[in-house]
């Protein structure tokens, strides 16, 4: 009996206005979005490889004088994520590169600085289409599956047979969803073909697996919304009421809850801005450097005040032999203090920020739409996880560069008792072409899932709960 009902539902949908409408929308928009995004991705990769090449050339040409003058900046570029063709995520707001200097790292411009004007309302990426269009359509189709049939009178005819209600419900959900899923599958395949035609590395390391995962998760997401639509339909007697209810639910999930979550978190856990924090850090660095310079000046004056010019110039004079270890010790202590205090500021700020972000995320995950977007962003490497990994790689690279490059040259700034300043240099040879390369280890699938447990729970909830709700409501539904 179930198969008959499923077949009936499929045929009914296919022959109504809905199926061709939905098929047309899917088959038009999804491949179109893919084309646009794929062209954009290709452009970004071209720009990236050119900039890496130029930065490598610049790095190989670093001279000792530049290091001593403190004007060396090494740039580390982030490779554009290939799966950003499916969802933008944070791709356009992450800095395209970081600058590494003697005094630490600084973010460079982000892609949105470049293309702000050109992408004023965002890109038509796959996740956007699913959230905005396909989910709404799924809701609309489901919304009058029950209340619409009741209005037209055919529901009571169906139930006048010896037909268990749960079979009817299962048939409706199965059949209706199948009629949605097939056009979606075809559109997705068309999109994949478009990608292949555009020389996209679809079959390179692990990408095909992730694309399959994207398809499965999206299919589940559409099923979730379809079930919610059925649940609403089973709770209302009129098709009109179902539609208005669905509209409100869709707008709440898609547009209002994520914003309100973010706003509420910002009100409950206000946090200083990054600008403020980096200001605080640079003030700290400056004051510690000044203290160090004064201390060095004092010690230098103590040792060399009564020394001859010859003693100052000869490297192995007794004064210089005494000076060396004292200078190194002062610099080491300042370095340690700097590192410790900067780390403390970073730590406090990170805690503040993560408390706010966690609250915002938890609140926004009430919406299955937000949960879906977050999960897919992390699967595609353009989400929160990517941001964390980027920062990790940046910190590691700074450390590596400090060891290989910046620590080889010591600039000693001294402030003497009378207020005069003097600068001393000491340098060890540096092979600029052998510097470590900047790279970000992409997050493994398992990591993405572990980081998105709450999103998965939210999606699971919204899949199971409406189904149960629809079941309970339909069992007692008045079909007259």
């Amino acid at each position, binding site marked *: 009996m179930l198969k008959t009902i499923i077949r009936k539902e499929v045929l009914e949908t296919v022959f109504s206005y809905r199926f061709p409408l939905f098929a047309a*929308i899917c088959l038009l*928009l999804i491949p179109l979005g893919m084309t646009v995004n794929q062209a954009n991705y290709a452009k970004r990769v071209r720009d990236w490889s050119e900039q890496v090449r130029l930065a490598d050339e610049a790095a190989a040409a670093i001279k000792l004088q530049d290091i001593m003058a403190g004007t060396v900046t090494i740039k580390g570029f982030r490779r554009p994520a290939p799966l950003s063709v499916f969802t933008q995520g944070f791709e356009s707001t992450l*800095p395209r590169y970081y600058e590494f200097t003697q005094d630490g790292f600084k973010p460079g411009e*982000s892609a949105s600085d470049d293309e*702000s004007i*050109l992408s004023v309302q965002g890109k038509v990426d796959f996740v956007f289409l699913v959230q905005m269009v396909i989910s*709404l359509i799924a809701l609309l189709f489901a919304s009058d599956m029950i209340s619409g049939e009741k209005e037209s009178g055919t529901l009571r005819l169906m139930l006048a047979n010896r037909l268990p209600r749960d079979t009817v419900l299962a048939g409706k959900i199965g059949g209706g969803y199948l009629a949605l899923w097939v056009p979606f599958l075809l559109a997705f395949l068309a999109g994949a073909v478009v990608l292949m035609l555009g020389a996209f590395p679809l079959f390179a390391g692990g990408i095909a697996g992730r694309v399959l995962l994207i398809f499965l998760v999206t299919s589940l997401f559409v099923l979730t919304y379809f079930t919610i639509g059925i649940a609403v339909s089973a709770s209302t007697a009129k098709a009109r009421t179902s539609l208005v209810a669905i509209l409100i639910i869709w707008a709440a999930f898609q547009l209002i809850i994520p*914003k309100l979550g973010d*706003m509420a978190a910002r009100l409950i856990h206000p946090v200083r*801005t990054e600008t403020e924090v980096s200001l605080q850090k640079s003030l700290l660095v400056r004051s510690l450097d000044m203290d160090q310079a004064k201390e060095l000046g004092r010690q230098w004056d103590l040792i060399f005040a009564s020394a001859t010019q010859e003693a100052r110039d000869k490297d192995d004079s007794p004064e210089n032999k005494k000076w060396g270890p004292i200078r190194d010790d002062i610099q080491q202590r300042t370095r340690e203090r700097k590192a410790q205090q900067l780390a403390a500021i970073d730590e406090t700020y990170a805690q503040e920020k993560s408390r706010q972000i966690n609250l915002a995320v938890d609140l926004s995950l009430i919406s299955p739409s937000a949960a879906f977007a977050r999960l897919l962003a992390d699967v595609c490497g353009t989400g929160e996880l990517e941001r964390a990994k980027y920062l990790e790689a940046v910190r590691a690279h700074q450390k590596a560069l400090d060891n290989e490059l910046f620590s080889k040259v010591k600039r000693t700034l001294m402030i003497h008792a009378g207020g005069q300043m003097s600068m001393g240099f000491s340098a060890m040879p540096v092979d600029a072409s052998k510097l470590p390369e900047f790279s970000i280890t992409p997050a493994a699938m398992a990591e993405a899932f572990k980081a998105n447990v709450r999103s998965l729970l939210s999606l699971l909830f919204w899949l199971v709960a409406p189904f149960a709700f629809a079941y309970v409501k339909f069992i007692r539904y008045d079909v007259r």
Partner: protein
Amino acid sequence: MMRVLFLKEIREAFASRRFWVILALCLVLIPLGVEVSLKDYQTRLQNYREAVRIYGEQTKTVTDVLYKGGAKAFAPPSPLGFLSLGLALVNPNVAETQYKYGEPPAVMRLSNNQGRDNLYEFFYGPLDLIFVVGVVMSLLAIIMSYGAIAGEKEQGTLGLVLSNSLPRARIILAKTAANSLVLIIPFIAALTLSLIILEIQGLSLAAVGGAWVSIGLSVLFAVLFIGAFFNLGLLVSALTKQAVAALVTLLLAWVFLYGVYPRLASAAAQVVHPVKSEARLALEKAQVRANIEKARDAEIDKLAKAMPDDEKSPAYEEGKKKQEEVRAKYRTDLEAGWRALDRESEARRAALLGLTADIARLSPVSAFVRPLAELSRTGWLEYRQFGVEAREFESVLNRDVFDKLTFVRMRGGATVNLDEKAGAATAPAFEYRPTPVEVVVRNVLPDLVLLVLFNLLFFAGAFIAFIRYDAR
């Protein structure tokens, strides 16, 4: 008879739950959005003031600019951002010189320092007036109007009304007038409340020229926008027999007009007018500079080999003058080359933005969203304005700072000289002037006319459809 009809429509609307839901939504969402926007603005204003203060303390003289880290220019955030956050998190608001020691002219790099602090706002979009009107109010307009004709026909009351000797024109006019009031009154009430809240919290609108003109025009745009969607709903309702079908069509049309069409317009325009990214432009300029400097350095090397060691000899002075001539010549070439690249890029971008706006205008949503961003000084006009002002500041910096350095190359190396008086002069300051209000108004006027046309068109269509509507 009009009065009776009108009163009937009004009573029906006010008595229904719909009006109170709309009132509640407006009174909650609009002031909430305005309040949050205000807090954001205050944070950004504080960041701006801090940055300006710190830069001012560090960089007082020309020498500071040369040796301490270059020159910076900052643009303050727009106080009208509560109307539309627009591109405020993405438009460049900081310009810094990228000055390699010893190599004028100065080049300013433009960037935005706000986006990073507001990542999630960037992700989900702000709760500004554009969102409330563009999304919530337009959906409400659809909900109010989808059943106006088809719904009444289904209920049977349309037939009853028309069985009186009542011209159809009056009926539809009364419906439109009454239901529009039901939408507009809560909106205006909530907006007034928000403006009062802003006044109480001391938001100073004086920094932006013609702020009240901008706000007034924005309200006009919003009212026309809501009206356009209402009339669209009326039109679709008059073309369908079932209210449900009308609603489904309207929702799909809404999603298309709001989410999909503007982006497609942007993508299509980019296909017609492809544009170099800023990064690529910077690369090309750097390439031009590298080539020119190589040629220049080759010539100067030759001259340097002939320089005498005695700085006081007349031959030295002559050699120095020759080197300066060579530098000046190559400098002119460089600036000409850069100007050509800039002009080409500007022209392409202007063409792209123009085409995008023109294609996107066909959706009433874009005819509303883009002008509101311009009126809030967070749109494309502001992007262009900051670029223009930054370039002007660049030439001031070159004139007063970077060109005061003189270079003389000798056999053994080079000497760099900076006139002491020039070095002690105050560093040039940057004062940002936002786009004047006349330019903005001229820019948004076509969209205003377009929205009026949309209203008239949709209403005329609904009118004609209703005249021939089968009310049985």
